[in-house]
C-alpha cells in the first residue's frame, strides 16, 4: 500500500489543531507527516499520538521558509521519492497557496477546501456555489491532492510508533518570487478560519472600539473575532476580519453572530458552521430564519452578560 502524506502546519513549535484533524481524516492509511524546515523532534510525540507512522522531515539547500515556490518543489520531490499516492493538507491561507503550487508542479488534479475525503475511492465532498450546494467529485489521478476545511474533521488520537525520516530535497529556487517582508499581526491572534469558535460583530457594533466587548468574550472561550461586510465597509474592522463572500470562509463548531443581519453573502462564509447563534435587536433580521438559536435583544446588554456567564 502506498503512503498518504499529510502536510503539517506548525506554529510556535506546536502542531496546529487543523493538521491533527487532517491526520484523523486519513484514518486507516499509512501516514507520512511532512514537516518542512523546522525541527521535527519537538512535534514527534504529538504526530505519533495522532497516527503518523513516519515523520518526513524535509530540508533543502537554501532558505526554505523564504520562498513558497521552493517549498512546493521540495514537497513535490518528497511525494515522488516516497511514492505517496495521496497528499492532504489544511485549506488555510498557507495550505491553499502551497497545494496549488504543488499541483502545478506535479501536474496532478487538486481539490481545495473539502469537507470530506474518501482516499480509497478517490472521491471528495466540497462546497460549490458559496455553501448552497455540496458537490461530490471523482478524481482521476496518480496522487490525490486535497486540502480540507479546518474543523471539518474532529481530531481523534490513534497512537502509533513513529520514526523520523530525514529527506533533503534536490531542488533549486526558480528565482521567480521573493518574500521581502513578513508583517506579524499585533499579538498572538487566533486565525479566523481555523478557530473552533467565532464571534462576529455586524454593523450594529457601531464602532471599532466596541469590538473590545467581543474580544473580551472571545478570550474566555478561545474564540476568534470576525466582522460582517457592513462593519468592514463602515471602517469598524479590517478586511482581514471579514467573514463571507469577498472575505473569509469559516466553519467553526460554534458561530455567534452579534448584530449581523444575515445577508446571503454573509452565509456564504459561515454556512457550514455546526451551531449558529444570532443576537440581534431587529426581530425581522433575516439571520433569525437561518440560525439554530436566536436572541432578540441589545448586543451591548447581552454580550457582557454572556461573557460573565462563560
Amino acid at each position: 500500500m502506498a503512503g498518504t502524506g499529510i502536510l503539517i502546519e506548525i506554529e510556535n513549535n506546536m502542531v496546529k489543531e487543523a493538521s491533527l484533524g487532517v491526520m484523523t481524516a486519513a484514518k486507516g492509511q499509512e501516514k507520512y507527516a511532512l514537516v518542512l524546515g523546522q525541527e521535527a523532534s519537538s512535534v514527534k510525540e504529538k504526530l505519533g499520538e495522532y497516527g503518523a507512522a513516519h515523520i518526513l522531515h524535509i530540508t533543502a539547500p537554501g532558505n526554505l521558509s523564504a520562498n513558497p515556490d521552493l517549498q512546493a518543489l521540495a514537497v513535490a520531490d518528497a511525494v515522488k521519492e516516497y511514492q505517496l499516492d495521496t497528499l492532504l493538507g489544511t485549506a488555510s491561507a498557507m495550505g491553499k497557496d502551497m497545494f496549488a503550487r504543488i499541483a502545478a508542479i506535479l501536474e496532478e488534479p487538486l481539490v481545495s477546501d473539502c469537507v470530506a475525503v474518501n482516499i480509497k475511492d478517490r472521491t471528495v465532498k466540497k462546497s460549490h456555489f458559496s455553501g448552497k450546494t455540496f458537490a461530490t467529485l471523482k478524481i482521476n489521478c496518480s496522487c490525490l491532492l486535497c486540502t480540507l476545511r479546518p474543523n471539518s474533521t474532529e481530531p481523534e488520537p490513534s497512537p502509533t510508533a513513529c520514526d523520523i525520516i530525514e529527506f533533503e530535497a534536490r531542488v533549486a529556487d526558480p528565482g521567480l518570487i521573493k518574500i521581502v517582508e513578513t508583517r506579524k499581526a499585533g499579538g498572538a491572534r487566533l486565525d479566523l478560519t481555523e478557530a473552533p469558535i467565532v464571534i462576529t460583530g455586524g454593523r450594529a457594533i457601531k464602532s471599532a472600539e466596541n469590538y473590545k466587548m467581543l474580544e473580551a468574550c472571545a478570550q474566555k472561550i478561545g474564540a476568534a473575532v470576525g466582522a460582517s461586510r457592513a462593519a468592514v465597509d463602515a471602517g469598524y474592522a479590517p478586511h482581514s476580519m471579514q467573514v463571507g463572500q469577498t472575505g473569509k470562509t469559516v466553519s467553526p463548531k460554534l458561530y455567534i453572530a452579534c448584530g449581523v443581519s444575515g445577508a446571503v453573502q454573509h452565509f456564504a462564509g459561515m454556512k457550514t458552521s455546526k451551531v449558529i447563534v444570532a443576537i440581534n435587536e431587529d426581530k425581522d433580521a433575516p439571520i433569525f430564519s437561518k440560525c439554530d438559536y436566536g436572541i432578540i435583544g441589545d448586543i451591548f446588554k447581552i454580550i457582557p452578560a454572556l461573557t460573565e456567564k462563560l
Partner: protein
Amino acid sequence: MKICVCVKPVPDTAVSIKLSGVAGFEDSEMKLVPNPYDEYGLEEAVSLVEKQGGEVVAVTVGKASAEATLRGVLAMGAARAILVKTDAQFLDSELTAKALKAVMEQDGLPDMIFTGKGSVDTESFQTQYRLAKSLGLPIVNEVSKLTLDNGKAVAERETGGGEKQVIEMGLPCVIGATKGLNEPRYPKFPDIMKAKKKEIRQMDLSIFGIDPSKGRVRVEKLEIVPERSGAKMLSGSVDEQVTELVRVLKEDEKVL
C-alpha cells in the same frame, strides 16, 4: 503595456441554485455575473492602463451565454474581450488553464495577467497557478495591495491571523486579486453604450484540441444544502436568555 484579465462568469451569489440531473444545475435562464474577485483584478488592470497606457483584454472560457457577462466587463473598461466557448457546465482547472494559455499565446502574451483569488462557484483556487506554471511566470495569489516599480511588481498578501507577506517579482507575472486591492467601478451609461461596440472575439474550445470530457475532476453528484429553519428563540430577561444559551451550548450541543 498589455494586460490580460481572466474573467469567469458565475451565478450571482444572491440567486438560488436549482439542480438539473444528478450533477448539474439549471443555467439556461440564469444571468451570469463576472466572478466578484475577478472584478478586483479587472479594476486594477484598467487603472494601471489608464495611468501608463496600454490595453486590457478580458479572457473568458465559458458558455456562449457568457457574451452578455463580457459586455459588462467591457463597460468596466476592458478594450476588447475573447470568449473561448464550450458547452460544458463544469470545466476542470487543468483544462481551463490550458485553454487560457493557448488563447493568450495566440493573441500575443501579455505583460501582466490578473485573475481573482478564486471563483465563487466551484471555489477551487488553482487555475491561476496552473496558468502561471505553464507560462513559466511568477504568481502571487490573494493580493490586496500592488505596486509596480522599475519593471518589478510588489504584492502584499494576507497569510492568516492578520499576518501579511510582501512579495517581489519581475514582469510578466500573474496576480490573483482579492478585496482591498481597489474598489471596482460601476460603469456609467456612456461606458455601457461604448461597450456595445467593442470587440468580443469568439472561438471554440475544440480548436485548441481540448476535450472537456477528458477532465480529471468530474462532478459525480450535486446536492442542495438544506437551509436551517425553525431556530429556537430564547426568551425572558437578559439573564434568563444568556443562562439558557450557555446551558444549551454546553449540555445539548456540547460546543462549549
